[in-house]
């Protein structure tokens, strides 16, 4: 490896030996592409003319406080995921791969991978926990409509972490022809670094838009954290600024019970899916089951850079319960006419709390995705 792949003590490359050459090839392709103006031109062209960048920065007109929304919900595909699948898809082409595999929880990353598979001409296979396949039939159909094959995973708890396990198993046998298009800034090196770089565009645009609209930087930047790709993409260009960075984890049914996905708040250090990071686990290292109303935050590990931002004190990490997220989801719809993803509603819920105590603070919220996928669940929950 050319980079060390560590964020403080976190990160690394904990995978079976057989996968190391594939990750080395990926790192080399990523670093070469980064220095290649033709790659940047093609990616930027797709981001602008296919995906719809730049996305707007919207100041809330009716919600209390001074809240700005970075509108990744308006990106093609309906979430920030599209930014990085385009990047990884082009890298896969560069490496001569013909097949993409991906994991998905609620189906957003699976849909994004199916999009890039259709656009760039890959055979696409998406691993999805059997439980999630049942719960997210619409997204399963969207993936199939774009030509992807969805494989239900029956092992373990039949959710996201099991889908990652299965994708890693597939990749162990298929890496010569196949790129594993991991969906977040987690996993083994080089994924956390590479995915951050492909998502950095969120924060770069938002920073410039804040200066343009408000004339200064925000006081706080708030984003939800599951694996952590939208948060790290939003934070990356603010790391050296005097700006609070706040990651919001899923507190589920409450941080004091076991039904949450608050890895940084309640987890302990461990090694899962290729990286040393915070992990929700028992005292012997067996991985715990997690819970969140939003499938995208329902994951027992977290990107290693967030683990480092927490331990170094640069990032603040807080929790938001299902109920708080649902209230923010409803408030945004009623006050601003925007239906956001349940994931993004966690970030907004915390911003609303901040706005209550600091009404003059400018708060930038990463609105990571739109809420179409959550509407039927919301209907049941709000009834």
């Amino acid at each position: 490896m050319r980079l060390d792949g560590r964020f403080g003590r976190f990160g690394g490359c904990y995978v079976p030996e057989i996968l190391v050459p594939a990750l080395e090839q990926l790192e080399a392709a990523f670093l070469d592409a980064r220095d290649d103006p033709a790659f940047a031109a093609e990616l930027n062209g797709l981001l602008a003319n296919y995906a719809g960048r730049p996305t707007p920065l919207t100041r809330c007109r009716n919600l209390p406080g001074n809240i700005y929304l970075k509108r990744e919900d308006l990106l093609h595909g309906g979430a920030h995921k599209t930014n990085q699948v385009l990047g990884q898809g082009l890298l896969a082409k560069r490496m001569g791969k013909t097949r993409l595999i991906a994991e998905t929880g609620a189906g957003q990353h699976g849909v994004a991978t199916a999009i890039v598979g259709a656009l760039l001409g890959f055979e696409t296979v998406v691993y999805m926990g059997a439980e999630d396949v049942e719960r997210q039939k619409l997204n399963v159909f969207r993936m199939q409509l774009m030509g992807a094959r969805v494989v239900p995973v029956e092992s373990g708890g039949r959710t996201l972490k099991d889908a990652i396990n299965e994708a890693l198993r597939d990749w162990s046998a298929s890496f010569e022809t196949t790129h594993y298009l991991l969906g977040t800034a987690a996993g083994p090196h080089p994924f956390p670094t590479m995915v951050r770089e492909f998502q950095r565009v969120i924060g770069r645009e938002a920073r410039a838009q804040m200066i343009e609209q408000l004339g200064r930087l925000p006081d706080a930047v708030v984003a939800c954290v599951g694996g952590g790709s939208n948060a790290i993409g939003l934070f990356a260009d603010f790391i050296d600024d005097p700006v609070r960075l706040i990651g919001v984890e899923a507190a589920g049914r409450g941080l004091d019970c076991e039904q949450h996905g608050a890895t940084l708040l309640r987890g302990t250090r461990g090694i899962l899916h290729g990286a040393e990071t915070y992990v929700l686990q028992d005292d012997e290292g067996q991985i715990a089951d997690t819970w969140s109303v939003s499938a995208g935050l329902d994951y027992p590990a977290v990107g290693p850079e967030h683990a480092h931002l927490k331990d170094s004190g640069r990032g603040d990490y807080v929790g938001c319960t299902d109920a708080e997220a649902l209230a923010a989801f409803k408030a945004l719809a009623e006050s601003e006419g925007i239906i956001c993803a349940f994931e993004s509603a966690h970030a907004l819920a915390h911003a609303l709390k901040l706005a209550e105590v600091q009404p003059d603070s400018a708060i930038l919220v990463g609105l990571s995705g739109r809420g179409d996928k959550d509407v039927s669940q919301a209907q049941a929950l709000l009834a």
Partner: protein
Amino acid sequence: MSRYAAMFERLNGECAFGAFLMLGDPDLETSARLLDAVVEGGADMVEVGIPFSDPVADGPVIQTAAQRALAAGVRVGDCFDLIRSFRDRHPDVPVGILTYANIVVARTGFMHDAAEAGADSLLIADVPALEVEPFARAMEQAGIEPVLIAAANTPEPTLQRIAGVSKAYTYCVSRAGITGTHAGGEFDTGLVQRLTKFGAPPPVFGFGISKPEHVRAAMAAGAKGVICGSVIVDSAARGEDVSELVRSLKGATRNDSATK
């Protein structure tokens, strides 16, 4: 001399047969009995899994075995107890632990406890040569021999590191994939030659060995030992005679030397 070295010396060039079982599968009592059964069938060394909830290097058979053990409430301490009692009954049979990094780092003194229970080696499936240094140091301090995986696609500089760090044997995987899912019987002779050049400990082949002809093919590729896992675990789960299965597989190591 370590138990592995003594075993290879005792075998005097004959291929070592390693039987893999998941500790605590399906429960502690049956697990102890199965360990005895594979030795009775002729296993020269025993490789034991400590169950992990998310075993990414394992195929469905071993995954299910780990799940059965965890569902039975098996804990890491129970696994060490199984090794300890096996060690009392079989003082000379080498025992290697195969598990995952999170199990090792979650327990302070894992290496020490493993050594104290009588285990000889440790292979951590998701710790490649790139990350192995602190783990190997801790193993050596505790008197546990590190075992690393060398794959057919592992580049030479990494093979050289693996050769230097691996002590008991080198676990060779000659084809891509996970445990128990290979067509079987295809081995790369070049891997053994490269490892020998770097002075690696004896090459032992695993992944995809389920029939006597696979054992013979591995030997033809230069294996000094083979490890069978999924086929034995599957057979045990079906309630079949595991000793008999091991006898037929171990028999292949002798057939070959007889006909050479």
